């Protein structure tokens, strides 16, 4: 199975929401292939179906058309093998559980044994060891999101799906966490799909960026980001970085001018 060429393979994916006001095409004919250990970002205007795409990849939504393969097998089976970690914009911590209990819970439900030592280790990797017995209401927004990341890592996923994980944080915390995410990826090389609407974030973090159109979301273009790694904080001032940002902007505006 690990011989399959792509880690994640999204094929002709379309999804239609049935609402009271008729059908709503969220995404249309999406094809994406993600290699093992690749960091890929999906960017697009709000409401373009990025989240729907991510939920299809995670197997939480059964798409109307098309299919998603993870390691060559249907995602619904992968969910059985429990190899997907998810981080949402909302940290989704259970307020009645401590930090460490939150990190452990999903792993325990996942049927993993000896989760406590793993939970301690993942909490350590996001720098929150000393806060392990705190409750979520005692933490800042950035710390909560780190816990949420540790919880996903505690599942020992081969695929990490992130839906605007830094979306609700202040600029300073955001930039710190961005660099930590870069470090984390560079040291673990997990396959990561990040949904974001920050061009800057996408360029800084990814190997490749997929740009989506307005609803119904389809792919307008893809761009390989060939900035050298490890990426330092200073990289954002480099000329190449600025060029990538401009190219993504053009792809995004191209789409909106088309529609008008």
């Amino acid at each position, binding site marked *: 199975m690990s011989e399959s060429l792509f880690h994640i393979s999204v094929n002709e994916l379309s999804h239609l929401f049935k609402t009271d006001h008729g059908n709503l095409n969220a995404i249309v004919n999406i094809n994406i292939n993600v290699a093992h250990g690749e960091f890929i970002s999906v960017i697009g205007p709000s409401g373009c179906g990025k989240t729907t795409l991510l*939920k299809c990849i*995670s*197997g*939480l939504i059964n798409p109307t058309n098309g299919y998603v393969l993870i390691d060559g097998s249907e995602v619904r089976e992968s*969910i*059985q093998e*429990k190899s*997907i970690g*998810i981080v*949402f914009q*909302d940290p*989704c911590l*259970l*307020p*009645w559980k401590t930090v460490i209990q939150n990190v452990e*819970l*999903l*792993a325990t*439900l*996942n049927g993993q044994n000896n989760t406590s030592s793993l939970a301690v280790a993942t909490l350590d990797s996001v720098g929150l060891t000393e806060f392990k017995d705190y*409750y*979520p*209401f005692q933490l800042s927004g950035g710390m909560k999101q780190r816990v949420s990341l540790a919880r996903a890592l505690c*599942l020992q996923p081969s695929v990490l799906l992130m839906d605007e994980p830094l979306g609700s944080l202040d600029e300073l915390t955001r930039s710190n966490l961005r660099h930590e995410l870069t470090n984390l990826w560079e040291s673990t090389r997990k396959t990561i799909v990040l949904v974001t609407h920050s061009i800057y974030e996408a360029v800084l973090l990814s190997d490749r960026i997929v740009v989506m159109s307005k609803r119904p979301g389809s792919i307008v273009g893809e761009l390989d980001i060939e900035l050298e790694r490890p990426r330092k904080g200073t990289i954002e001032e480099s000329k190449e970085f600025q060029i990538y940002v401009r190219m993504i902007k053009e792809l995004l505006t191209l789409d909106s001018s088309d529609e008008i």
Partner: protein
Amino acid sequence: MRYRETKLGQKSLIVFYYLLPPITALLVVLVIWEICIRIWNTPIYIAPSPTAVFNRIFTDPIFFLSHGSVTLGEAMSGFILGATTAFLAALLMAHARFLERLLLPIAILIKVTPIVAVAPMFVIWFGFGMLPKVLIVGLITFFPVLINAIAGLKSVNSDTLDLFHSVNASNKEIFLKLRIPNALPYLFAAFRISIPLSVIGAVVGEWFSGDKGLGSVIMIAHSNLDMPTLFAAIIILGLTGIILTFISSYFESKLLFWSDTG
């Protein structure tokens, strides 16, 4: 040392700000009441003075204690019965929408029927003992707990629910680890309504049957124009309600320290 001082200072401040005003207000009301009774020389079978009422309580405290504990016992047993049934029903209804459509109309029917209208029937069916009172209390406390429990079980964050689904959590696990803890603040909010209702239910039940409990003390005192006894029973009922609410609030703050609703 400094810390200790500020701590102590804060404590006396809390007493000053939160306890002093209501106690003062209560004392003022009692004093005005006493003065009015004395100025107008109101006969005791119309309205007793506070001193007469307290005198009545303290000359025979055992009388009020024994009747009070009967009412308290009925109210608490009924509340436990009503709240438990309501919670179990809420679990069923939150589990299957079809069951909610099936059962909720009946619950609403129970809610809108005045309890005073049903009480006499219960006496015919269940006799003069404790049972009809417990059932009346159960009926009156059922609905607030049911509605809040359903809301609490259902109002879980959809992303959190997705996370549970992403690790293939079973329905049972989702209820135990997510929905039920999530419903606790809603339950305690319902208790704040249901606990005072439980005392009302017990008294209404006692009006219709039996000779025990503060409800029947009120009925008998009323027919004898024994106003000090009647007032004493009312005051003790009020105190019971306050104490029960305090106990519930105490457990709420201990158990739900994480909740911002408390």
